[in-house]
Protein backbone atom coordinates (compact mmCIF):
# COMPACT_ATOMS: atom_id res chain seq x y z
CA UNK A 1 0.00 0.00 0.00
CA UNK A 2 1.24 3.42 -0.85
CA UNK A 3 1.93 5.80 2.00
CA UNK A 4 1.18 8.90 -0.03
CA UNK A 5 -2.09 10.75 -0.18
CA UNK A 6 -4.25 10.73 -3.31
CA UNK A 7 -3.49 14.40 -3.86
CA UNK A 8 0.21 13.71 -3.75
CA UNK A 9 -0.15 10.88 -6.24
CA UNK A 10 -1.98 13.18 -8.60
CA UNK A 11 0.03 16.38 -8.37
CA UNK A 12 3.41 14.75 -8.23
CA UNK A 13 3.41 13.85 -11.90
CA UNK A 14 2.33 17.29 -13.02
CA UNK A 15 5.34 19.32 -12.01
CA UNK A 16 7.51 18.19 -9.14
CA UNK A 17 8.31 14.88 -10.78
CA UNK A 18 7.44 15.92 -14.32
CA UNK A 19 8.30 12.94 -16.48
CA UNK A 20 10.05 14.90 -19.21
CA UNK A 21 11.51 17.95 -17.51
CA UNK A 22 12.58 16.48 -14.19
CA UNK A 23 12.83 12.75 -14.68
CA UNK A 24 14.15 13.12 -18.26
CA UNK A 25 12.08 10.22 -19.57
CA UNK A 26 10.22 10.07 -22.85
CA UNK A 27 12.55 12.51 -24.56
CA UNK A 28 12.07 10.94 -27.97
CA UNK A 29 8.55 12.27 -28.63
CA UNK A 30 9.23 15.47 -26.69
CA UNK A 31 11.94 16.35 -29.16
CA UNK A 32 10.67 14.76 -32.32
CA UNK A 33 7.07 15.87 -32.69
CA UNK A 34 7.09 19.21 -30.91
CA UNK A 35 7.93 21.18 -34.02
CA UNK A 36 4.33 22.26 -34.12
CA UNK A 37 1.74 22.75 -31.38
CA UNK A 38 -0.88 20.65 -33.17
CA UNK A 39 1.46 17.67 -33.40
CA UNK A 40 2.55 18.11 -29.79
CA UNK A 41 -1.05 18.21 -28.54
CA UNK A 42 -2.13 15.13 -30.47
CA UNK A 43 0.92 13.21 -29.29
CA UNK A 44 0.19 14.33 -25.74
CA UNK A 45 -3.38 13.09 -26.01
CA UNK A 46 -2.31 9.77 -27.51
CA UNK A 47 0.29 9.22 -24.78
CA UNK A 48 -2.25 10.23 -22.12
CA UNK A 49 -4.69 7.67 -23.48
CA UNK A 50 -2.09 4.90 -23.53
CA UNK A 51 -0.79 5.81 -20.07
CA UNK A 52 -4.16 5.90 -18.33
CA UNK A 53 -5.52 2.88 -20.18
CA UNK A 54 -2.55 0.68 -19.45
CA UNK A 55 -2.17 1.87 -15.84
CA UNK A 56 -5.82 1.06 -15.28
CA UNK A 57 -5.54 -2.39 -16.81
CA UNK A 58 -2.25 -3.23 -15.11
CA UNK A 59 -3.64 -2.23 -11.75
CA UNK A 60 -6.78 -4.31 -12.35
CA UNK A 61 -4.88 -7.47 -13.22
CA UNK A 62 -1.86 -7.02 -10.96
CA UNK A 63 -2.89 -9.88 -8.70
CA UNK A 64 -3.44 -12.24 -11.62
CA UNK A 65 -0.09 -11.75 -13.29
CA UNK A 66 2.82 -13.84 -11.95
CA UNK A 67 5.94 -11.81 -11.27
CA UNK A 68 8.09 -13.60 -13.82
CA UNK A 69 6.03 -12.52 -16.79
CA UNK A 70 4.94 -9.17 -15.55
CA UNK A 71 7.16 -7.02 -17.77
CA UNK A 72 6.13 -8.96 -20.86
CA UNK A 73 2.47 -8.63 -19.94
CA UNK A 74 2.80 -4.91 -19.31
CA UNK A 75 4.49 -4.44 -22.65
CA UNK A 76 1.75 -6.46 -24.33
CA UNK A 77 -0.90 -4.27 -22.72
CA UNK A 78 0.91 -1.07 -23.66
CA UNK A 79 1.47 -2.26 -27.24
CA UNK A 80 -2.22 -3.05 -27.60
CA UNK A 81 -3.26 0.41 -26.46
CA UNK A 82 -0.69 2.03 -28.72
CA UNK A 83 -1.94 0.08 -31.73
CA UNK A 84 -5.50 1.14 -30.94
CA UNK A 85 -4.38 4.76 -30.65
CA UNK A 86 -2.42 4.51 -33.90
CA UNK A 87 -5.36 3.11 -35.86
CA UNK A 88 -7.75 5.65 -34.38
CA UNK A 89 -5.50 8.57 -35.25
CA UNK A 90 -4.98 7.29 -38.77
CA UNK A 91 -8.73 7.09 -39.27
CA UNK A 92 -9.77 10.41 -37.76
CA UNK A 93 -6.86 12.84 -38.13
CA UNK A 94 -4.92 11.42 -41.09
CA UNK A 95 -2.86 14.56 -41.75
CA UNK A 96 -1.55 14.81 -38.21
CA UNK A 97 -1.04 11.06 -38.11
CA UNK A 98 1.13 11.38 -41.20
CA UNK A 99 3.14 14.16 -39.56
CA UNK A 100 3.62 12.12 -36.40
CA UNK A 101 4.63 9.12 -38.47
CA UNK A 102 6.44 6.36 -36.65
CA UNK A 103 6.44 8.22 -33.35
CA UNK A 104 2.93 7.15 -32.39
CA UNK A 105 4.08 3.55 -32.51
CA UNK A 106 7.20 4.53 -30.55
CA UNK A 107 5.00 5.45 -27.59
CA UNK A 108 5.40 1.77 -26.77
CA UNK A 109 9.04 2.27 -25.82
CA UNK A 110 8.37 5.58 -24.12
CA UNK A 111 10.06 4.87 -20.80
CA UNK A 112 7.46 6.93 -18.95
CA UNK A 113 4.74 4.37 -19.42
CA UNK A 114 6.62 1.27 -18.42
CA UNK A 115 8.12 3.18 -15.50
CA UNK A 116 4.70 4.11 -14.12
CA UNK A 117 3.44 0.53 -14.44
CA UNK A 118 6.48 -0.93 -12.79
CA UNK A 119 6.83 1.67 -10.06
CA UNK A 120 3.22 2.35 -9.22
CA UNK A 121 0.33 0.73 -11.04
CA UNK A 122 1.53 -2.78 -10.33
CA UNK A 123 1.63 -2.13 -6.62
CA UNK A 124 -1.32 0.13 -5.96
CA UNK A 125 -5.10 0.02 -6.12
CA UNK A 126 -6.93 1.04 -9.25
CA UNK A 127 -8.07 4.45 -8.05
CA UNK A 128 -4.60 5.58 -7.04
CA UNK A 129 -3.05 4.20 -10.20
CA UNK A 130 -5.53 6.18 -12.23
CA UNK A 131 -4.67 9.37 -10.34
CA UNK A 132 -0.98 8.74 -10.82
CA UNK A 133 -1.43 8.08 -14.53
CA UNK A 134 -3.62 11.12 -15.08
CA UNK A 135 -1.18 13.34 -13.22
CA UNK A 136 1.79 12.03 -15.19
CA UNK A 137 -0.16 12.36 -18.42
CA UNK A 138 -0.97 15.98 -17.64
CA UNK A 139 2.67 16.61 -16.79
CA UNK A 140 3.71 15.14 -20.11
CA UNK A 141 1.19 17.28 -21.93
CA UNK A 142 2.48 20.38 -20.19
CA UNK A 143 6.03 19.57 -21.24
CA UNK A 144 4.90 18.96 -24.81
CA UNK A 145 3.08 22.28 -24.88
CA UNK A 146 6.08 24.11 -23.49
CA UNK A 147 8.31 22.66 -26.17
CA UNK A 148 5.81 22.92 -28.99
CA UNK A 149 4.80 26.51 -28.37
CA UNK A 150 8.36 27.83 -28.26
CA UNK A 151 9.40 25.87 -31.33
CA UNK A 152 6.43 26.78 -33.46
CA UNK A 153 6.25 30.44 -32.47
CA UNK A 154 9.94 31.05 -33.05
CA UNK A 155 10.33 28.67 -35.95
CA UNK A 156 7.17 29.49 -37.86
CA UNK A 157 5.61 32.55 -36.30
CA UNK A 158 2.31 30.75 -35.81
CA UNK A 159 0.41 28.65 -33.32
CA UNK A 160 -1.67 25.65 -34.35
CA UNK A 161 -0.77 26.29 -37.97
CA UNK A 162 -2.51 23.86 -40.26
CA UNK A 163 -5.56 23.41 -38.06
CA UNK A 164 -8.80 25.31 -37.90
CA UNK A 165 -7.48 27.44 -35.06
CA UNK A 166 -4.19 28.35 -36.68
CA UNK A 167 -3.09 31.91 -36.24
CA UNK A 168 -0.05 34.01 -36.87
CA UNK A 169 1.39 35.08 -33.56
CA UNK A 170 4.26 37.27 -34.67
CA UNK A 171 2.92 39.98 -36.91
CA UNK A 172 4.52 41.53 -39.90
CA UNK A 173 7.13 40.05 -42.17
CA UNK A 174 8.61 37.79 -39.53
CA UNK A 175 11.36 35.75 -41.08
CA UNK A 176 10.92 32.45 -39.23
CA UNK A 177 13.82 31.23 -37.15
CA UNK A 178 13.69 27.97 -39.07
CA UNK A 179 16.22 26.11 -36.96
CA UNK A 180 13.64 25.73 -34.21
CA UNK A 181 11.38 23.48 -36.23
CA UNK A 182 14.34 21.36 -37.26
CA UNK A 183 16.00 18.65 -35.12
CA UNK A 184 18.72 20.88 -33.59
CA UNK A 185 15.98 23.20 -32.40
CA UNK A 186 14.42 20.36 -30.46
CA UNK A 187 17.61 19.70 -28.53
CA UNK A 188 18.31 23.38 -27.95
CA UNK A 189 14.78 24.23 -26.82
CA UNK A 190 14.74 21.46 -24.24
CA UNK A 191 18.22 22.44 -23.13
CA UNK A 192 17.15 26.04 -22.59
CA UNK A 193 13.99 25.05 -20.74
CA UNK A 194 16.16 22.95 -18.43
CA UNK A 195 18.44 25.93 -17.88
CA UNK A 196 15.47 28.10 -16.93
CA UNK A 197 14.05 25.47 -14.58
CA UNK A 198 17.46 24.95 -13.06
CA UNK A 199 17.76 28.69 -12.46
CA UNK A 200 14.39 28.85 -10.70
CA UNK A 201 15.26 25.86 -8.55
CA UNK A 202 18.58 27.39 -7.60
CA UNK A 203 16.88 30.67 -6.67
CA UNK A 204 14.37 28.82 -4.56
CA UNK A 205 17.03 26.91 -2.65
CA UNK A 206 19.00 30.12 -2.16
CA UNK A 207 15.95 31.91 -0.78
CA UNK A 208 15.13 28.97 1.50
CA UNK A 209 18.69 29.00 2.81
CA UNK A 210 18.55 32.71 3.53
CA UNK A 211 15.19 32.34 5.19
CA UNK A 212 16.22 29.56 7.48
CA UNK A 213 19.80 30.44 8.24
CA UNK A 214 20.22 34.17 7.69
CA UNK A 215 23.23 34.59 9.95
CA UNK A 216 25.08 31.71 8.38
CA UNK A 217 24.53 32.94 4.84
CA UNK A 218 25.58 36.46 5.74
CA UNK A 219 28.74 35.12 7.37
CA UNK A 220 29.54 33.10 4.26
CA UNK A 221 29.08 36.14 2.08
CA UNK A 222 31.48 38.15 4.22
CA UNK A 223 34.07 35.43 4.19
CA UNK A 224 33.90 35.13 0.38
Amino acid at each position, binding site marked *: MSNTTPQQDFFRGIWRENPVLIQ*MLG*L*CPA*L*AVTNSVANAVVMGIATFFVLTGSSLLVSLVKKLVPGEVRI*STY*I*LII*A*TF*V*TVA*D*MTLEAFVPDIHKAL*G*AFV*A*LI*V*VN*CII*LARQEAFASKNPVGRSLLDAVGTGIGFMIAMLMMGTVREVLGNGTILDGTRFGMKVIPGNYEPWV*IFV*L*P*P*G*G*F*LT*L*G*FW*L*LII*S*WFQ*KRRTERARIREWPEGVAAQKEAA
Partner: protein
Amino acid sequence: MMGDLLWILLSAMVVNNFTLAYFLGLCPFMGVSGRIATALRLGLADIFVLVIASICAWFLNTFILPYAPFLRLISFIVVIASLVQIVEMVIKKVSPTLFRQLGIYLPLITTNCAILGLAIFQTNRGYGLLEGIFFALGGGAGLTLALVLMASIRESSEMADVPSLARGMALVLIIAGSLSLAFMGFAGLLSAS
Protein backbone atom coordinates in the same frame (compact mmCIF):
# COMPACT_ATOMS: atom_id res chain seq x y z
CA MET B 1 20.71 -0.92 -57.50
CA MET B 2 24.02 -0.53 -55.74
CA GLY B 3 23.61 3.20 -55.98
CA ASP B 4 20.25 3.02 -54.24
CA LEU B 5 21.63 0.80 -51.49
CA LEU B 6 24.57 3.11 -50.97
CA TRP B 7 22.21 6.07 -50.79
CA ILE B 8 20.14 4.26 -48.14
CA LEU B 9 23.23 3.49 -46.10
CA LEU B 10 24.81 6.92 -46.26
CA SER B 11 21.50 8.71 -45.78
CA ALA B 12 20.78 6.74 -42.62
CA MET B 13 24.31 7.29 -41.38
CA VAL B 14 24.85 11.02 -41.78
CA VAL B 15 22.16 12.90 -43.67
CA ASN B 16 19.29 11.57 -41.58
CA ASN B 17 21.24 10.33 -38.58
CA PHE B 18 19.09 8.15 -36.32
CA THR B 19 19.98 10.05 -33.18
CA LEU B 20 20.62 13.58 -34.35
CA ALA B 21 17.80 13.81 -36.87
CA TYR B 22 15.25 11.23 -35.78
CA PHE B 23 15.85 11.28 -32.01
CA LEU B 24 16.13 7.51 -31.74
CA GLY B 25 18.43 5.88 -29.22
CA LEU B 26 18.52 8.89 -26.91
CA CYS B 27 18.82 6.99 -23.61
CA PRO B 28 22.35 5.75 -24.18
CA PHE B 29 23.21 8.94 -26.05
CA MET B 30 22.32 11.20 -23.14
CA GLY B 31 23.79 8.87 -20.56
CA VAL B 32 27.07 8.03 -22.23
CA SER B 33 29.99 9.05 -20.12
CA GLY B 34 33.24 10.46 -21.43
CA ARG B 35 34.67 7.08 -22.24
CA ILE B 36 35.04 6.66 -25.96
CA ALA B 37 35.83 2.94 -25.80
CA THR B 38 32.52 2.32 -24.05
CA ALA B 39 30.62 4.34 -26.60
CA LEU B 40 32.27 2.47 -29.44
CA ARG B 41 31.42 -0.93 -27.97
CA LEU B 42 27.83 0.08 -27.36
CA GLY B 43 27.57 1.33 -30.90
CA LEU B 44 28.94 -1.87 -32.38
CA ALA B 45 26.56 -3.96 -30.29
CA ASP B 46 23.78 -1.75 -31.63
CA ILE B 47 24.80 -2.30 -35.25
CA PHE B 48 24.81 -6.03 -34.71
CA VAL B 49 21.37 -6.13 -33.13
CA LEU B 50 19.96 -3.65 -35.66
CA VAL B 51 20.97 -5.77 -38.65
CA ILE B 52 19.42 -8.89 -37.18
CA ALA B 53 16.31 -6.97 -36.18
CA SER B 54 16.03 -5.65 -39.71
CA ILE B 55 16.07 -9.16 -41.12
CA CYS B 56 13.46 -10.30 -38.62
CA ALA B 57 11.25 -7.33 -39.41
CA TRP B 58 11.53 -8.08 -43.12
CA PHE B 59 10.59 -11.68 -42.46
CA LEU B 60 7.56 -10.70 -40.41
CA ASN B 61 6.45 -8.10 -42.93
CA THR B 62 6.75 -10.44 -45.88
CA PHE B 63 5.34 -13.70 -44.59
CA ILE B 64 3.26 -13.19 -41.49
CA LEU B 65 1.95 -9.68 -41.11
CA PRO B 66 0.07 -9.38 -44.41
CA TYR B 67 -2.52 -11.61 -42.73
CA ALA B 68 -2.80 -9.54 -39.56
CA PRO B 69 -1.45 -6.03 -40.03
CA PHE B 70 -2.86 -4.89 -36.70
CA LEU B 71 -0.43 -7.23 -34.90
CA ARG B 72 2.56 -5.43 -36.36
CA LEU B 73 3.60 -3.50 -33.27
CA ILE B 74 3.08 -6.35 -30.83
CA SER B 75 4.98 -8.83 -32.98
CA PHE B 76 7.87 -6.39 -33.48
CA ILE B 77 8.20 -5.81 -29.76
CA VAL B 78 8.03 -9.49 -28.92
CA VAL B 79 10.61 -10.34 -31.55
CA ILE B 80 12.95 -7.53 -30.51
CA ALA B 81 12.82 -8.48 -26.84
CA SER B 82 13.45 -12.14 -27.61
CA LEU B 83 16.16 -11.21 -30.09
CA VAL B 84 18.17 -9.33 -27.51
CA GLN B 85 17.87 -12.23 -25.06
CA ILE B 86 19.04 -14.68 -27.69
CA VAL B 87 21.91 -12.47 -28.85
CA GLU B 88 23.02 -12.13 -25.25
CA MET B 89 23.01 -15.90 -24.75
CA VAL B 90 24.80 -16.53 -28.05
CA ILE B 91 27.55 -14.02 -27.33
CA LYS B 92 27.98 -15.47 -23.86
CA LYS B 93 28.54 -18.95 -25.29
CA VAL B 94 30.56 -18.01 -28.33
CA SER B 95 32.88 -15.40 -26.88
CA PRO B 96 32.90 -14.89 -23.11
CA THR B 97 35.43 -12.07 -23.42
CA LEU B 98 33.16 -10.15 -25.77
CA PHE B 99 30.29 -10.83 -23.43
CA ARG B 100 32.15 -9.41 -20.50
CA GLN B 101 32.90 -6.25 -22.44
CA LEU B 102 29.42 -5.77 -23.90
CA GLY B 103 27.45 -7.53 -21.21
CA ILE B 104 25.72 -4.73 -19.37
CA TYR B 105 24.88 -2.83 -22.51
CA LEU B 106 22.83 -5.51 -24.18
CA PRO B 107 19.75 -5.27 -21.94
CA LEU B 108 19.86 -1.50 -22.40
CA ILE B 109 19.40 -2.04 -26.09
CA THR B 110 15.95 -3.57 -25.65
CA THR B 111 14.21 -0.40 -24.71
CA ASN B 112 16.39 1.46 -27.09
CA CYS B 113 13.81 2.95 -29.38
CA ALA B 114 16.29 2.77 -32.21
CA ILE B 115 15.49 -0.86 -32.89
CA LEU B 116 11.74 -0.47 -32.91
CA GLY B 117 12.17 2.76 -34.83
CA LEU B 118 14.24 0.97 -37.44
CA ALA B 119 11.62 -1.75 -37.84
CA ILE B 120 8.84 0.78 -38.27
CA PHE B 121 10.73 3.06 -40.68
CA GLN B 122 11.69 0.03 -42.70
CA THR B 123 8.06 -1.04 -42.89
CA ASN B 124 6.75 2.39 -43.79
CA ARG B 125 9.26 2.77 -46.59
CA GLY B 126 8.64 -0.71 -47.93
CA TYR B 127 12.28 -1.77 -47.91
CA GLY B 128 13.18 -5.26 -49.11
CA LEU B 129 15.67 -7.58 -47.43
CA LEU B 130 18.86 -6.05 -48.84
CA GLU B 131 17.64 -2.48 -48.47
CA GLY B 132 16.68 -3.18 -44.88
CA ILE B 133 20.12 -4.54 -44.07
CA PHE B 134 21.88 -1.55 -45.58
CA PHE B 135 19.48 0.71 -43.71
CA ALA B 136 20.37 -1.04 -40.46
CA LEU B 137 24.08 -0.84 -41.20
CA GLY B 138 23.86 2.84 -41.97
CA GLY B 139 21.61 3.60 -39.03
CA GLY B 140 23.82 1.67 -36.64
CA ALA B 141 26.94 3.35 -37.97
CA GLY B 142 25.23 6.70 -37.49
CA LEU B 143 24.30 5.81 -33.91
CA THR B 144 27.88 4.79 -33.20
CA LEU B 145 29.14 8.00 -34.74
CA ALA B 146 26.82 10.09 -32.59
CA LEU B 147 27.70 8.16 -29.44
CA VAL B 148 31.45 8.43 -29.99
CA LEU B 149 31.24 12.13 -30.81
CA MET B 150 29.15 12.84 -27.73
CA ALA B 151 31.50 10.81 -25.54
CA SER B 152 34.58 12.63 -26.79
CA ILE B 153 32.98 16.06 -26.40
CA ARG B 154 31.89 15.26 -22.88
CA GLU B 155 35.36 14.03 -22.09
CA SER B 156 36.74 17.42 -23.13
CA SER B 157 33.98 19.39 -21.46
CA GLU B 158 34.72 17.80 -18.10
CA MET B 159 37.75 20.07 -17.88
CA ALA B 160 35.94 23.11 -19.20
CA ASP B 161 34.56 25.95 -17.14
CA VAL B 162 30.83 25.31 -17.42
CA PRO B 163 28.40 27.45 -15.40
CA SER B 164 26.92 25.38 -12.60
CA LEU B 165 23.46 26.12 -13.93
CA ALA B 166 24.14 24.27 -17.13
CA ARG B 167 25.99 21.29 -15.78
CA GLY B 168 24.27 18.01 -16.36
CA MET B 169 21.43 17.46 -18.77
CA ALA B 170 21.15 21.01 -20.01
CA LEU B 171 24.73 20.93 -21.24
CA VAL B 172 24.28 17.54 -22.84
CA LEU B 173 21.24 18.77 -24.72
CA ILE B 174 23.00 21.88 -25.95
CA ILE B 175 25.94 19.79 -27.11
CA ALA B 176 23.51 17.46 -28.84
CA GLY B 177 21.85 20.43 -30.50
CA SER B 178 25.20 21.64 -31.80
CA LEU B 179 26.04 18.17 -33.11
CA SER B 180 22.67 17.96 -34.78
CA LEU B 181 23.24 21.36 -36.35
CA ALA B 182 26.64 20.23 -37.62
CA PHE B 183 25.17 17.10 -39.14
CA MET B 184 22.60 19.17 -41.00
CA GLY B 185 25.52 20.22 -43.13
CA PHE B 186 25.43 16.79 -44.69
CA ALA B 187 22.09 17.49 -46.33
CA GLY B 188 22.50 17.69 -50.05
CA LEU B 189 25.55 15.41 -49.90
CA LEU B 190 23.77 12.67 -51.74
CA SER B 191 21.50 14.58 -54.04
CA ALA B 192 22.19 13.98 -57.68
CA SER B 193 22.67 17.15 -59.61
